[in-house]
């Protein structure tokens, strides 16, 4: 890793700490004490986390966090395209998470691809008498109406766990009867402190119910890999998978964007797991390493610098033929990327960006902005753990502010002081900052654009960032009268 210390003019540990102290003054004593541990200036050289994370959200603050169900349905299970995913419980959770994470899917809707909302629509009587019978009926109906579905996942919402329904038993019986995998996932929203536990629980169910239940019919080859933690937001996987294939790899399974149940189930046969979203799927990589001896590697596909670095890191693990192909790929795309940088950098150079996203983007994208001449002056996560912040320290410039589970009032305060030229965060923050006339991109979902991953994604990323920062509309905010 590079040891060069990045600094930002005007930002020192003291200035950042003063900014943090000011915002903490807004809280009552107890809230102030709880939040203080989650806000700190970065210490780039340390390479370790400067803030506490993965703790309960302070009640009554405007947090951006979701819940375990959101992590299970929206992130891990939802993108598997050929399965029916049942939101088991009241209607709302499924309805809110329906189509809102932009994990695009191939196939024919309702035939062999299911970007739909399936719910048991719990009523009061289900809460009183239990919903197990309804679930059993529902699973049969799903199998009947969607015969090509490769499996059914049952994702439980809060009431299911609170009333003590046994979805595991129902799923077990149904799986035998219907002769397809029925996976119970106890991901009730009240579990844990954020989406993160939902990822973990889902990974555990993949481990317990899916992995090793399928085998590839063709012999295992030396370049067979799986792409893990790639959710195909705005078509990301359709950029990264072909890129890896161009480098000579056989991408046997993608987890879980545009994912296929069978292929995920046979992943224990690959030679290497390549993980992109470390936060949501490192558990599975570790499981496969321990159980099947499959090594794994973390890569970053945002921006040419990181793509180049990642591909070379990957090639190191293989033979010369791969190394040659990787160098050829880099040589092919580098000039194209350079042209993009030459086009956009003059308009973006020296601009400041503040990030606040979910599991990986607050560190993964920093370098992509730097490729365009921009500087990251604040970064933080909704649901990261210490290992994420450890990985962030070396990417972020020294002394810049790091915030964990930031409340909106903190973000607002930091934005007032740091005066960023762009904020990259989520839908809940977007319109607040745009009212402050600060350009914004939704970095959970690429703001209805994408892909942003890989060589195919960088030109789109660069265009979108330029479009946001340099839109003439921002100049109209102040009336001339």
């Amino acid at each position, binding site marked *: 890793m590079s040891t060069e210390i990045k600094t930002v003019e005007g930002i020192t540990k003291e200035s950042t700490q003063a900014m943090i102290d000011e915002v903490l003054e807004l809280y009552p004593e107890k809230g102030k004490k709880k939040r203080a541990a989650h806000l700190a200036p970065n210490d780039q050289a340390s390479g370790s986390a400067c803030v506490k994370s993965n703790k309960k959200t302070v009640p009554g603050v405007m947090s951006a966090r979701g819940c375990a169900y959101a992590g299970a349905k929206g992130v891990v299970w939802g993108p598997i395209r050929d399965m029916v995913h049942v939101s088991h419980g009241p209607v709302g959770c499924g309805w809110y998470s329906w189509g809102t994470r932009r994990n695009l899917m191939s196939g024919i809707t309702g035939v062999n691809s299911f970007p739909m909302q399936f719910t048991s629509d719990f009523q009061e009587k289900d809460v009183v008498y239990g919903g197990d019978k309804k679930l059993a009926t529902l699973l049969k109906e799903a199998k009947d109406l969607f015969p090509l579905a490769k499996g059914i996942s049952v994702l439980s919402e809060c009431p299911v766990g609170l009333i003590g329904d046994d979805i595991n038993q129902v799923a077990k019986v149904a799986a035998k009867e219907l002769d397809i995998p029925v996976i119970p996932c106890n991901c009730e929203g009240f579990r844990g402190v954020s989406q993160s536990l939902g990822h973990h629980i889902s990974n555990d169910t993949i481990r317990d119910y899916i992995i090793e239940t399928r085998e590839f019919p063709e012999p295992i080859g030396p370049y067979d890999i799986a792409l893990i933690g790639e959710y195909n937001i705005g078509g990301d996987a359709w950029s990264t998978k072909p890129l890896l294939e161009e480098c000579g790899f056989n991408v046997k399974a993608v987890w879980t964007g545009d994912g296929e149940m069978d292929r995920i189930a046979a992943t224990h046969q690959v030679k290497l797991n390549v993980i992109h979203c470390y936060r949501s799927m490192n558990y599975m990589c570790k499981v496969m390493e321990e159980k099947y001896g499959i090594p794994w590697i973390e890569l970053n596909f945002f921006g040419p610098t990181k793509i180049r670095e990642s591909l070379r890191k990957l090639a190191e693990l293989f033979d010369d033929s791969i190394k040659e192909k990787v160098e050829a790929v880099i040589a092919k795309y580098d000039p194209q990327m350079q042209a993009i940088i030459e086009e956009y950098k003059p308009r973006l150079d020296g601009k400041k960006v503040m990030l606040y996203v979910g599991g990986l983007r607050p560190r993964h994208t920093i370098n992509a902005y730097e490729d365009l001449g921009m500087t990251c002056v604040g970064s933080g996560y909704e649901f990261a753990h210490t290992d994420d912040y450890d990985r962030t320290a070396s990417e972020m410039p020294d002394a810049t502010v790091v915030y964990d589970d930031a409340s909106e009032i903190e973000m607002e305060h930091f934005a007032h002081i740091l005066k960023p030229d762009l904020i990259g965060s989520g839908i809940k923050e977007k319109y*607040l900052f745009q009212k402050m006339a600060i350009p914004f991109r939704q970095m959970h979902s690429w703001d209805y654009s994408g892909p942003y991953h890989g060589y195919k994604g960088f030109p789109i990323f660069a265009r979108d960032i330029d479009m946001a920062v340099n839109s003439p509309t921002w100049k109209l905010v102040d009336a001339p009268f």
Partner: protein
Amino acid sequence: MANNLGLKVKPVTETPVAEVERVAAWINTEEYKEKNFARQALVINPAHACQPLGAELAAHGFEGSLPFVHGSQGCASYYRSTLNRHFREPAPAVSDAMTEDGAVFGGQNNLHEGLENAYKLYKPKMISVFTSCMPEIIGDDLTAFIKNARMKGFVPEGLPIPYANTPSFNGSHIHGYDAMLLAILQTLTAGKKVEGRCTGKLNLLPGFDANTGNIREYKRILEAFGIPYTVLADISEVFDSPNDGTYRPYPGGTKLEDAADSINGKVTLALGTYSTAKTYAWIKDNYSGKLASIPMPFGIAKTDAFLMKLSELTGKPIPASLKEERGRAVDLMTDAHQYIHGKKFAVYGDPDYLLGLVSFLLEVGAKPTHVLCSKGTKKLEKELQALLDSSPFGKEGKVYVNKDLWHLRSLVMTEPVDAIIGDTHGKFAARDAKVPLFRFGFPIFDRVNLHREPLIGYQGVMNMMSTICNKFIDVIDETCEERQFEMMR
């Protein structure tokens, strides 16, 4: 063997193309429709959300009101995101972030800490508390918890804290709207009734309506009449605030003193009988002045009825300007009826919207063929059927209550229509049926600015007519043979 299911290890298989094609054709058939309609337990693509979302919308409609979700933080995030995506506006709200320990010990500590933080941080004039599933199931007692919060000094004595129970496993977003609105009015008007006092104002209850243009349109009509008014709850500024470089967490809403004084109003008028049913019943027993509840003014006849009701209730004549506007709307309808006459529509959505949209379609000679509500009552079913029966254009129409958008898909594939009216979620069925989707409803995630375009009143008639007729003309231009492509349409 790693899997817990005891299933045999199978090879990875691809579904044969022929099989995919067979099923793709099969799901469009009458046979599939029957199977689909025989469903008892599985709900697929419903057109309704849960109660707390509606509660949050009502809570946003009052000045300085901070919506407060007593329950899991994930719920609060979902409601906020949904409102953000629809309005493309901020929706500030907090939750008290209940987790496992809340399930065991109850949510009082969360609520107390949450109220203390929320009050100090966001300086609201009112905190509007409503529940999500978790506290409803464990049986948290909001009345006691909030009383204790005041006693312990977490919030000042005078701060209004209306609260509503809004279990998600009961009713839909419109019921949550009703429950929260009722709680807010009960709280604010407590002890405010003054014998003999009359504000001279009309209280208008627009109900669950996520169209800020509609609310503005009501206000414009009342202003044309010269009727002083209070809208309960007024979301029009909250979700349509100007961009002048300053973020304001509470950019509008019904003034709290106006809401409090609404109990001494001259007249109360509820628009739509479904999404404010409980509030209306309570107002009936408690408010001074005259009152009435009429359907939402979609289309000419229902707008006429609205204006005549206003005139009747206030004694003011219908302004000439509105009569002229009526004439313009009718003029447009006679001019453009040829593009919509006899066209078949599938319509789905909330009860009050459905009644209005169907009424409008019938009066322009269009045929509402499938009318679907994914959360409705027998009463609604009867009312919609009676509406269809009232016109020769409703003859082929059928009402489907408690059916979802996957049922709707079967309907439009087996008994085709020319267009669908509903929210964004209908875009899949519309694409499969190869017909346009007119986004008149909530939520609209995939088009800009539609929430600002009024659908009610004569202006609404003109908007809907222009949108629908011009789209049908677009379709002709986009799909006709070269030799049929002409200058005029």
